């Protein structure tokens, strides 16, 4: 019977909530967030989250890149894998002068902006000295050799580029052209001669100027003043980067795993400085926000609610002791303690949640105690005693039902606080490093100087999410307030 | 006649506009209050007597408001005055109210004297000294020690508080004083003292009261004229002797016969079966018809008019509305 009464209480509560505009907005948002949190594996990529701390996983993403919709003319990343023969990849192999060669030509189109990098990953196996030759062909027909040109007699060993044993190796190798070119020696050896052969005037200090922009310079319109020109015009059209591996080992095998022409933008809300897809972090963060919010608020409100009602109803010494205990807990400031604990112990999210519950229940207890003090003076409570009700019966069937609406409102209103406290902790770097929360994302942004560097996509979305989720619960709490106040006064 | 009538109410109607519907709390009420007269307004819970009191004061709480009618105090029409005019000229100067229990009338954080002085200071611009003199006079008038002005409301007993409430109502010597259940919360001994006080004040100061209560015995104790209210309407209005000794309206007579008496022969108490009507959707015709033992077809269809059956005696009942039905005599 009590189940029936309880459930009808729920139903009544939700129907009341639906009647207010604020309640409808709050409830819809809540349902949206719950959906996103629960169905994250379907809409997002759980692998991204599992590998959040695995920096290797993210190395193929642009670092600190804004979202593509926010940047105007930009290069959209193109990525190909070796398994498929797409129009962007041409594979060739053969023999020449006693060397076996395997080459991969990666093609990409530039409209207004060039890629910020070209990354290629191969799986290679050889047992004799092996060399590599990389060229780039521009839409205007010009070729650039980016390594030693075997036709001119220079051979660049795989050791130089990949740091692997040039005589025998079997495994993965990876190259990022922009960083490869971000090297004085490489620039001097290959970029400068090529520029000079194309009538570009170069001063001695221009070598330094070319670092950091060597790769993009390769994509510029060739004018004599290319280095000093104020406006940068890029040459649009098809570019072809070819990787040739050659060796005297007839069993040389090279498989392209992935080739990427990396754009300066990524994803829906961009990436952080490790290249992590912030959208995944953002969506997954909903889960933790809701878990933390709900577990802390439901537990602390339930514990506090029952504690307060029991103390208030029994009165006397029991109540004195319970009240003073609650007041002691209430007056302890939570954040400093949590900071202290986080510094001493290894911060785990469940510790944080437990602490928030332990320090969160008193505020509800104090209020429900006052309510119980009032309700127990009502005539129908005395009437219950007159017919012989036990104390527990009175507590759970007479007093608690009157307090329940307040508890619901309380749960709704405590959620933002819990989320913020955890976010604050994570922001201070004291959160659980094994989970992805918005606070943590903000912490990493701050450490990387995101605000100074203008990486707004890293800072604004998590902050906005915290605000919106907090607001959702406050709206629900407000709606409850509208509904419950007259009843509370009863 | 109109020259001596201190209060004239004609066709006063007040309704509450709630989201559940329109509640016609007071409907077409008309009566006159003469100088040095006590009009008793009697009725049970929900009959509209409190709303009527507030309507006369212009204090109907929202979502209610006066819908129609005229209220003339000393010949001045008060319903069409603006809020500020009413506050400055009418409220408390021409018409004041004795509330039920000091809980409604006194602010616990100010002394009694301070609160009694307020009308003098704000309405009449007295100085504090002058106001204090007046306050002491008032307290003496209601049988209280003038030194009480220094006390706080909670320090006074129930009887003393009620006397102070009466003093407050008398402050500006209004023409009409409305007493809304002034003794309901009091013990019977204190009640008799307060009622005696009111009788004395009426005589000495030539006051006119509207005495509102559900207690018919108290009405008999005080009122010269009695109006019986039911479902927002006055169903019978007349001199006290007629109402109590030979009532015409079936409700009035049933009400009189349901009063347990302390003296005299013990007769079986009568009761009225059923409940007062829901004022949002009242029954058609006469509002009392579902509970009336004399109800006929006409009663269920049309509401009877307020008819003067004798001089100063009005009844709202088809039994006496000649022209539509044969009129009978008093119902015994």
């Amino acid at each position, binding site marked *: 019977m009590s189940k029936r*009464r309880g459930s009808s*209480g729920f139903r009544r509560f939700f129907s009341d909530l639906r009647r207010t505009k604020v309640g409808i907005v709050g409830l819809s948002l809540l349902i949206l967030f719950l959906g996103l949190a629960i169905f994250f594996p379907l809409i997002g990529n759980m692998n991204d989250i599992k590998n959040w701390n695995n920096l290797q996983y993210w190395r193929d993403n642009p670092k600190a890149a804004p979202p593509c919709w926010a940047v105007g003319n930009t290069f959209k990343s193109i990525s190909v894998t070796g398994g498929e023969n797409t129009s962007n990849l041409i594979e060739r192999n053969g023999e020449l002068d006693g060397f076996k060669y395997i080459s991969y030509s990666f093609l990409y189109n530039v409209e207004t902006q060039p890629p910020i990098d070209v990354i290629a990953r191969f799986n290679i196996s050889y047992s004799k000295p092996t060399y590599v030759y990389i060229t780039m062909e521009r839409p205007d027909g010009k070729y650039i050799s980016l390594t030693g040109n075997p036709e001119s007699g220079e051979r660049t060993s795989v050791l130089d580029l990949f740091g692997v044993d040039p005589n025998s190796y079997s495994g993965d190798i990876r190259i990022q052209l922009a960083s490869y070119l971000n090297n004085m020696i490489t620039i001097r050896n290959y970029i400068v001669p090529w520029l000079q052969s194309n009538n570009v005037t170069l001063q001695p200090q221009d070598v330094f100027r070319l670092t950091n922009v060597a790769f993009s310079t390769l994509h510029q319109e060739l004018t004599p003043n290319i280095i000093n020109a104020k406006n940068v015009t890029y040459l649009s059209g098809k570019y072809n980067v070819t990787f040739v591996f050659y060796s005297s080992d007839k069993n040389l095998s090279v498989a392209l795993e992935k080739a990427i022409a990396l754009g300066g933008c990524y994803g829906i809300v961009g990436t952080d400085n490790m290249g992590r897809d912030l959208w995944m972090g953002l969506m997954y963060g909903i889960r933790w926000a809701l878990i933390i919010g709900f577990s802390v608020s439901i537990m602390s409100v339930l514990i506090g609610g029952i504690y307060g009602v029991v103390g208030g109803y029994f009165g006397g010494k029991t109540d004195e002791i319970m009240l003073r205990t609650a007041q002691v807990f209430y007056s302890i400031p939570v954040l400093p303690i949590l900071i202290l604990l986080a510094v001493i112990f290894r911060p785990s999210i469940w510790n944080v949640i437990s602490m928030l519950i332990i320090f969160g229940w008193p505020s509800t207890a104090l209020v429900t105690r006052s309510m119980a003090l009032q309700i127990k003076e*009502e*005539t*129908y409570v*005395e*009437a*219950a*005693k*007159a*017919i*012989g*009700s*036990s104390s527990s019966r009175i507590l759970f*069937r*007479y007093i608690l039902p*009157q307090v329940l609406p307040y508890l619901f409102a309380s749960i709704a209103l405590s959620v933002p606080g819990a989320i913020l406290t955890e976010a604050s902790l994570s922001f201070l770097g004291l959160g659980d490093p094994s989970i992805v929360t918005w606070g943590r994302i903000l912490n990493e942004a701050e450490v990387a100087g995101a605000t100074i560097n203008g990486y707004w996509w890293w800072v604004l979305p998590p902050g906005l999410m915290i605000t919106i989720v907090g607001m959702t619960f406050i709206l629900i709490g407000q709606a409850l307030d509208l509904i419950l106040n007259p009843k509370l006064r*009863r | 006649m109109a020259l001596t009538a201190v209060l004239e109410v004609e066709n006063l109607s007040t309704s509450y506009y709630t989201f559940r519907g329109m509640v016609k709390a007071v409907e077409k009420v008309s009566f006159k209050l003469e100088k040095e007269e006590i009009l008793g307004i009697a009725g*049970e*819970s929900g009959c509209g007597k409190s709303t009527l009191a507030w309507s006369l004061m212009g204090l109907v709480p929202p979502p209610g408001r006066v819908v129609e009618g005229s209220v003339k105090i000393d010949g001045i029409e008060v319903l069409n005055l603006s809020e500020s005019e009413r506050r400055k000229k009418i409220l408390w100067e021409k018409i004041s109210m004795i509330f039920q229990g000091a809980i409604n009338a006194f602010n616990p954080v100010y002394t009694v004297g301070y609160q009694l002085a307020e009308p003098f200071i704000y309405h009449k611009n007295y100085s504090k000294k002058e106001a204090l003199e007046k306050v002491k006079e008032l307290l003496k008038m209601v049988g209280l020690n003038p030194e009480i002005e220094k006390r706080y409301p909670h320090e006074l*007993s129930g009887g003393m508080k009620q006397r102070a409430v009466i003093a407050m109502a008398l402050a500006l010597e209004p023409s009409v004083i409305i007493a809304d259940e002034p003794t309901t919360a009091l*013990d*019977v*001994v204190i*009640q*008799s*003292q307060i*009622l005696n006080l009111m*009788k*004395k004040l009426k005589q000495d100061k030539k006051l006119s009261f509207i005495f509102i209560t*559900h*207690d*018919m*015995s*108290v*009405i*008999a*104790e*005080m*009122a*010269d004229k009695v109006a019986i209210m039911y479902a927002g309407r006055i169903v019978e209005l007349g001199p*006290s*002797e007629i*109402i*109590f*000794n030979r009532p015409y309206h079936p409700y009035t007579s*049933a*009400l*009189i016969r*349901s*009063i*347990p*008496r*302390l003296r005299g022969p*013990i007769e079986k*108490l*009568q*009761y*009225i079966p059923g409940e*007062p009507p829901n004022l949002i959707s009242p029954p058609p015709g006469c509002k009392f018809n579902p509970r009336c033992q004399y109800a006929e077809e006409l009663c269920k269809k049309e509401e009877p008019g307020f008819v003067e059956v004798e001089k100063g005696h009005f009844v709202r009942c088809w039994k006496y509305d000649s022209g539509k039905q044969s009129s009978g005599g008093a119902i015994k």
Partner: protein
Amino acid sequence: MNVDKKELMELFSNKRDIVLMVDGLKVWFPLKRGLSDILKGRPQRFVRAVDSISFFVREKETFCLAGESGCGKTTTGKSLLRLVPVTDGVGLFRARKETLEDLKKNGVNVDGEDYVDIFAIHPKKMKPVRRDIQIIYQDPYGSLNPRYKILDILKEPLEIHKFQLTEEEKLETVYRALETVKLKPPEDFVDRHPHQLSGGQRQRIAIAKAIIMNPKIVVADEPVSMLDVSIRAEMLELLQTIKRERGLSYIFITHDLAVSRYICDRIAIMYLGRIVEMGDTRRIIENPLHPYTKALVAAIPEPNPSNRLRMRDVPIKGEIPSAANIPPGCRFHPRCVEYEKNIENLKSKCPLQDPPYYVAEDGRLVNCWLFEGNKKIEKAHASFIM
């Protein structure tokens, strides 16, 4: 067990038509002591709400406790259900056999063969007695749990006391209780909540709840004072019918003497925690003897319009003192007009000594020095012979 109680029990055993005998009931509430009180060694002060009263109630009788607010009548009623702590007194109650059995099973010392001292039972062990003594409250709006349906409200006593009934039988019992209080058809009412009913209907539910376990005594605490006048008579008639049909007794608490004249068999007028006059209702009201009763009767207005032309003469002075400061001697003497008139003769008695109970000619008891000539009641409990 002192001698008095033994005598009382003997008396009670013989009077089989008496269902309750209360002797020397005291309910004193301690006033909170401040630190300065404790330090100065001031004695603990009490609010003496009920200050030693004795009365009895017969089977199928309506016994009234009447008086103004603060006289202790409600506290007396509630003390029978131990809703207030009892400071002293004996309350012999002829409970049902099953009740006495249950009490014995719980380790309660049951004094007599068919009765028990309800004031000697530890409050936590009172539960079985609650089947036999029930209460109807004054406020129909506050005495029913607003969250319960009517069905739950009426089933609850049956469930708390573990009546061995099936769900159907419980429903039947509830229906019959609703029919007894004339809420027909009962099916219409069981699923409603209290706020959907009128005041009169709610009070009927309260009555149904009180009688559903077939108690022997029902304490009715001003059951009609918050109801409209036109339905009071119906409610009082209902109570009488139920009393006749079920053979129970009422302890009817009221401040309205006019009502008590219609419903009470015997009445006790209370003042400041003491019974000042007790006996046959009609005789007391028609011819009050105690000065307080005289004042009370004189103060009550009547539906007689010629009363407005006169001042009401009420022979009493001053106001009720607080129950924490009960006047010495006869507690009524500061307000007593008779004392004032005969102050020379009475100044050695009324302000100094608490008067004993005297028996007037018609057998009623009066607690007043003016009746010194009459037969005195030595021990309070001997008053039950009436």
